């Protein structure tokens, strides 16, 4: 499928939105990226850069080549890639924790799982648990793993140690110098091969492949730095876009106050966030803003805040109400696109899908902020089904997989992650850990037979 500008001849009459929930302010809708790019000539101007076609196809290397070494599109892409590596690291960490935490250990598990478990605890900001496990694998026949264990032990022994500064330690998967517009290679997984512990009864211990979340963390940091470098050190785009995807305990940096600079069109185009205010809604929730007040504060500028507010009942987001609102909003935006262009066009429907998915995703963040984790998960699953075609966002899907892994639900996680494992170098590392969880959970389940 090609992404083509709709600046050709008008196609069909603009249809009014169906009767449904009350429309939101036209001013908010007019400020959204779908309506902006629907203006005659606007999409042509964007698509003059071939990077967008690659981006539409989720060909990230091709998009980087197209966007070049600088500019907001390059910064946005590096930030997105950084977010994807973060969610993959989270998926890997949660898989590892659910496989190897003490109550889930099994006979035969290699002694070295203590090291990968330690790194997993680092990723989820449980540094003390990590420290307890580090330094125990120095005697491993895997010299690489022993060195990595020592490197993390040393790193966490520093005062206020965290994972986020890029490490140049040779045992911690260092990458080449940060260069915007480039996709660095990442070490192939599994990173280490170790032996099972010998079993009573004397069967030959088999080799076990382990992967280290450090590699994905390093990649995440590298691309974040590249995003800033693409804008000559301006971190506003990277911080804003990563604000929705930071790992537990990680600082929000320049957007900690939830004050976002107005983002350029290139940072929002084909994203779930219609305006900077929509992203601000989510970033603010991550920064700890109380949801009710935050929704109210942004209802005049954020389409999502406006419609989600209508569906909040007793500190919960009603999923049925929000689906209705999301559909109505997407129709309103689509109609506004038609009005801006002068007629309806197929690309308008394509872009309206971002609205539907984005509303539901923002609703999930609000539910989470209310402490309704199950309600948030339900909304994310609905958003998953509504994220079709170009609105199918790999980072979002991997984040659901990461959540599922934390719930010991590997089947859905595998299905979600499998489609994206080859999208970026090194993501295979997360699959190694997810496979291990899948094996463990499935072997704990009751028997089942094939059915036709």
């Amino acid at each position, binding site marked *: 499928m090609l992404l*083509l*500008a709709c600046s050709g001849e008008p196609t069909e009459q603009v249809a009014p939105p169906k009767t449904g929930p009350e429309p939101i302010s036209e001013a908010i809708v007019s400020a959204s990226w779908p309506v902006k790019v629907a203006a005659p000539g606007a999409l042509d101007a964007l698509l003059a850069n071939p990077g967008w076609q690659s981006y539409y196809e*989720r060909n990230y290397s091709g998009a980087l080549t197209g966007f070049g070494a600088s500019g907001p599109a390059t910064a946005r892409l590096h930030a997105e890639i950084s977010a994807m590596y973060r969610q993959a690291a989270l998926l890997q960490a949660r898989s590892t924790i659910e496989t190897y935490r003490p109550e889930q250990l099994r006979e035969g598990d290699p002694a070295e799982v203590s090291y990968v478990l330690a790194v997993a605890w680092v990723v989820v900001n449980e540094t003390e648990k990590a420290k307890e496990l580090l330094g125990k694998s120095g005697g491993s026949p895997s010299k690489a793993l022993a060195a990595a264990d020592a490197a993390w032990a040393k790193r966490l022994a520093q005062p206020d140690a965290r994972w986020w500064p890029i490490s140049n330690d040779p045992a911690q998967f260092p990458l080449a110098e940060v260069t915007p517009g480039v996709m660095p290679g990442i070490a192939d997984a599994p990173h280490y091969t170790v032996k099972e512990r010998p079993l009573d009864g004397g069967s030959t211990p088999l080799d076990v492949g382990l992967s280290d979340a450090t590699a994905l963390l390093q990649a995440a940091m590298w691309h974040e730095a590249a995003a800033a470098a693409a804008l000559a050190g301006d971190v506003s785009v990277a911080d804003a876009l990563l604000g929705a995807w930071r790992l537990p305990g990680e600082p929000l940096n320049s957007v900690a106050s939830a004050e976002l600079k107005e983002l350029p069109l290139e940072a929002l185009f084909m994203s779930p966030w219609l305006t900077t205010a929509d992203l601000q809604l989510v970033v603010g929730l991550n920064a700890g803003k109380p949801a009710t007040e935050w929704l109210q504060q942004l209802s005049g500028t954020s389409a999502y805040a406006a419609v989600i507010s209508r569906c909040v009942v007793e500190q919960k987001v009603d999923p049925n109400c929000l689906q209705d609102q999301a559909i109505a909003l997407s*129709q309103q935006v689509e109609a506004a696109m038609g009005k801006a262009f002068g007629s309806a*066009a197929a690309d308008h429907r394509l872009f309206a899908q971002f609205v539907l998915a984005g509303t539901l995703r923002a609703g999930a963040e609000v539910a989470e902020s209310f402490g309704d984790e199950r309600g948030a998960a339900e909304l994310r699953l609905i958003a998953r089904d509504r994220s079709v075609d170009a609105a199918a966002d790999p980072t979002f899907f991997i984040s659901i997989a990461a959540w599922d892994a934390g719930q010991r639900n590997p*089947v859905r996680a*595998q299905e979600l992650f499998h489609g994206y494992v080859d999208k970026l170098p090194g993501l295979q590392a997360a699959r190694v850990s997810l496979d291990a969880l899948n*094996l463990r959970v499935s072997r704990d389940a009751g028997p089942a037979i094939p*059915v036709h």
Partner: protein
Amino acid sequence: MHSNPHRLLSVLGLAAAALTTGASLAFFEESLPSTMNPLFAQSMVDNRVHELVMDRIYFNDPINNELVSNIVQEWSLLDSGKSIRLVLRKGVKWQDGEVLGADDICFTVKAMLDPGTPSPIAEKQRAIFAGCTVEKPDVAVVQFTKVFHNPLNRLSVHVLPEHAFGGKTAIQPDHEFSLRPVGTGPMKGSSGRRGTTFEKYKNVHHDAGIDTLSLQEGNDPLVQVKTLINNGVQGIITVPPGNRAEVSAQDDLALKSYDLRSWWFVAVNQEKPYLKDKRVRQALDLIVDRTDLRQLSIGVKPGEQNSPCEFISGPFVQSSPFYNRTVAVNARADKAKAFELLNAAGLKQEGGRWHFKNEPITMRIGMKAPLDIEAPDLLSQVGNQLSAAGFDRQEFKITTDDWNLKVLTGQASEYDLVIGKWSFGLVEDVNPLFHSRKDGRGAFNVFNFTNPQIDTLLAQYEVARTDTQAQDAYHKLHALLAQELPYLFLWKLDTKSAWRTEVRSNTITPYYYWTVFDKWRTGA
């Protein structure tokens, strides 16, 4: 200036459908259920309907995967974990008004342990359960064969009513229960010739938001989608990939993911003299052009991104940890190599047709009939490819009944090839498909394939003590099956349902589908 030749979606397609009124739903299934007794479930249709009528002791919540029970109030481990004491929730009734008791839990366990119950799933459960005793009318103690990690996970069995079977634990598939089941689930089911109906049964633990549910057998997928658009039904369980765009284009419809692991195959009857030599099976594997088949049947163009249909080279989906990613798939045909193999195996091509011992070979190809909905014309396309390579062929659609009675029982010797699909959930135990038929093993070994090396690997999987041992056994199995080819492995096809948007809170449980049906509602 670009014009836009790609009209991807109709603009604001409006369905003139009436809104659903009342709490009734109708939906299209792949076929009618073959049994309402969960011990004898053979198809995904069976598995799904059992979830409406029966309760499993424990199940996983489809949203957060929490292990929960509707019928157990509390549990505790006994005998250092080798037994589990279950206190039942009070007031739970069977759909005939009888009270659910500990005797029903123990009856269920004992029925599975009874060797007179000819159920493949019961056979598997015998490795898990050792017995059960009724401590009090509402307290059952279930004994395991050993101490298991996370023992509650082993209790995902449907509970059967002791009184419906007169206490006889040797349960037969033709018992009346298979047609008129009595469960404790949210809906009371009744099978008919043209469909299955379900009526709400209010209970202390179930209060479904839908009063009646009607299962209808789906046929032409286009008709199914049109009927859905016109609100003649409110849902379709399986929407073929070729019809998904039309569903997506409708504001009143929504596609929903249905997570299960399904893969398609062509089983090869190696009991036929000309198929005994594995070089002939390997040749067939090279004659089948999966890329063309997928395009012609599923509608996936070569190189298409995010295809719902992914080729496989062994008996697992590619996202599975058991899939051996070092075994390449044959995406394209290689007739030259195939013909070399056929000649080496002693087949001769005369007049463009392949002969064995001077007799022309005619392939009798069967396919489970309902699969034609999901993969239209697949049977004909496979036949066409074989014909183009020089094999005469005859094609047959096999009814679900014949599939159950003949194909699955290894009595379909009249066919050379049969096309089918297997589905799995969390557990991907393929031993019943490839183990030699003996001692209760190989229960679904379609053409009675037998290979001692394969049996050894399957045994290694079964007795594996570590995850790595299990994975290693199945990786080796995958590699060996790709050589021996009792099946030509085709593809994994993802599954999507479609529901009208006025159907609310319709969470689909991976594999089981209807697990949280209580919450489903209708209304604009």
